[in-house]
């Protein structure tokens, strides 16, 4: 079973088109193994991306050096998944 220990979901907000393009560049960085939950569209819409633990530091450094704002939408994805599973199990019981 694939688990997501240490994965975070970041909500990234671009302040202009230039930042939007920099976020879009992340999509091409295959080695980060990012999973875009909500893709790059326009400045008004935040981008949500699941970042594996091994890429967290690099992605955050990338965003910070480009002065791109982000917030951690999900701190620990696996914890949330386990909570969801517990709820389902409780209902099934």
């Amino acid at each position, binding site marked *: *079973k*694939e688990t*997501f220990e240490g994965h975070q*979901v970041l909500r990234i907000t671009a302040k202009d088109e230039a930042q939007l393009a920099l976020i879009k560049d992340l999509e091409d960085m295959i080695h980060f193994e990012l*999973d*875009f*939950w*909500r*893709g*790059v*569209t326009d400045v008004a*819409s935040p981008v*949500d991306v*699941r970042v594996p633990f091994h890429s967290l530091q690099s992605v955050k450094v990338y965003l910070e050096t480009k002065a791109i704002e982000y917030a951690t*939408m*999900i701190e620990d994805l696996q914890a*949330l*998944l386990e909570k*969801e599973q517990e*709820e*389902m199990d409780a*209902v*099934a019981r």
Partner: protein
Amino acid sequence: AGGARSTDSFDYANYHTISEIYNFQDMLVRENPNLVSKIVIGQSYEGRPLSVLKFSTGANRPGLWIDTGIHSREWVTQASGTWFAKKIATAYGSDPALTAILNNMDIFLLIMTNPDGFAYTQTNNRMWRKTRKPNPGSSCVGVDPNRNWDAGFGEPGASNNPCSETYRGPRANSESEVKSIVDFVRSHGNLKSFISIHSYSQMLLYPYGYTSTPAKDQAELHSLAKKAITALASLYGTRYRYGSIINTIYQASGGTIDWTYNQGIKYSYTFELRDTGDYGFLLPANQIIPTAEETWLALMVIMKHAYKNAY
């Protein structure tokens, strides 16, 4: 189903396993033999049935299509589809607008559009989005079934990399989950609306995704979308954006509703349901019913319009 002996006692406020949802469908058919039937339009790669609930009160009627769950990890969509099924069954005969629609048209509801993916989200990888067919020559599995339709297939807005979440597949309709719907739509030949439901990001979208050329009915689709999201927002204030796929999100080729629109189904829309819980695909279960309730209002606007504006 989850302990339920009837669709009245089914717990709509929680997520369910695939077998519970299949059982729910069978119960609904048994309880409403004069309204609801089940049509198996094909099977998934792993052999699961693609079961469409048909709500019908007569023969040879035009049809309205709704599907949920083509991206398997979007659990709130299958859960909402289950709620819609019960709503249609109970509102017929009591809700004048729905009754009028069903006295003249059929509604087809495919709750489990990507059953292999859904089963996989429940056993192996909660974040799985694609189908589960292996890709020859690659260790990566599955195709994005919303990039596999014969509408701008292979153009920008989809990936040719089997490891990508938006892998389009080797050819249009390569996925049985897509081909089965294509065959059904063609053989039916008289669908008047086609609504494909995704989550999340709160949008109501119409064609096109693969081209910036406006759909010839864009003005009508746009104003109908506005009416639909206004109705949706009237319940809980959930705010939606609306527009063509390419202008509202990004270029996406091989998408479902671009193909249905090109087949002549004018009222082709795709939803992105709510994210009020701020957890994306992990929308808390207590959000299911509010999501379904508000979406239903928008669905009714589109279905009523399709009924009253015959073409």
